[in-house]
């Protein structure tokens, strides 16, 4: 990702959201993974995470930085149908997003 804006806030510790109530009904959880790419602005990624997942800025920024620094980040874990919906929204904004089964 390309850097444009500097972080505005201190990044707080966060945890990946899991829709456990839905999981018990439909089986194993799936991970929504966002991958780094060299042309997408970091601030745009943060904004997309806030819009798609309704994450607060600090959490969205932490996940964005994880993508930037490690090459990928599991940004959401939960029921497959919802995971697919999230991936569609991320891909619709041209982030590189994939789906993978979450390790048991």
């Amino acid at each position: 990702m390309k850097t444009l804006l500097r972080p505005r806030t201190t990044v707080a510790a966060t945890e990946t959201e899991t829709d456990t109530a839905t999981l018990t009904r439909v089986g194993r959880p799936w991970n929504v993974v966002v991958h780094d790419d060299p042309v997408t602005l970091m601030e745009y990624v943060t904004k997309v995470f806030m819009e798609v997942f309704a994450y607060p800025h600090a959490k969205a920024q932490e996940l964005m930085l994880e993508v930037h620094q490690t090459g990928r980040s599991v940004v959401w874990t939960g029921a497959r149908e919802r995971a697919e919906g999230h991936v569609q929204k991320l891909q619709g904004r041209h982030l590189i997003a994939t789906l993978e089964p979450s390790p048991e």
Partner: protein
Amino acid sequence: MRLVMDENGDVHVTGMPLLFADTLGRVPALLESEDPRARERLAPRTFEDDEEEAQWRRLSTPDLLHLIASRAETVRSDLAALRWEPDGPGDTFALTIPAAHRPAFEAALNGAVQSLYGSSGLSQEELQRNPGELGDLDRDIALLRIRWLTAFLGDLLMVQERGMLDDTIDEMEGDDTDDGDIDGDGDGDGDDDEPRA
């Protein structure tokens, strides 16, 4: 080039240089590109498993392509209102991006950059170089357009926080280092000093 967001959330862009206006005008076509390398960036692989991927391509990818086409039309309609500024400093243009179209415009800009990146075949290393250094006119122009569109997307995001922004895309045209103040904050540090993945 100046961006101002009014009380309704509409963004008014003035002083847009001719060459940048030309690049912006290519955004819809970039989104609709049939180049396989561009398509791979616009509709990337989603599953590692081939069967899962085939099902995704059959059921979900058409919706994604429809969304991209819809965004291209939105941007195309806004760009149709691009107007020459008779009292401008030179060959400059003005554009209004309605508040309701801003999300589509932002996504379209990122999509156009992905399309250009894919179809140009530029490497990550080449992205760090300056336009004019690649020894190939088409690739140099692609790199320049990627820089401009990315900078404009950054400006659109920033003007939503600041309300007004004096951009430097016009200055970048004559900047042989091309790592100038594209973050528009006036300190001239640009983005090339920052870490990238």
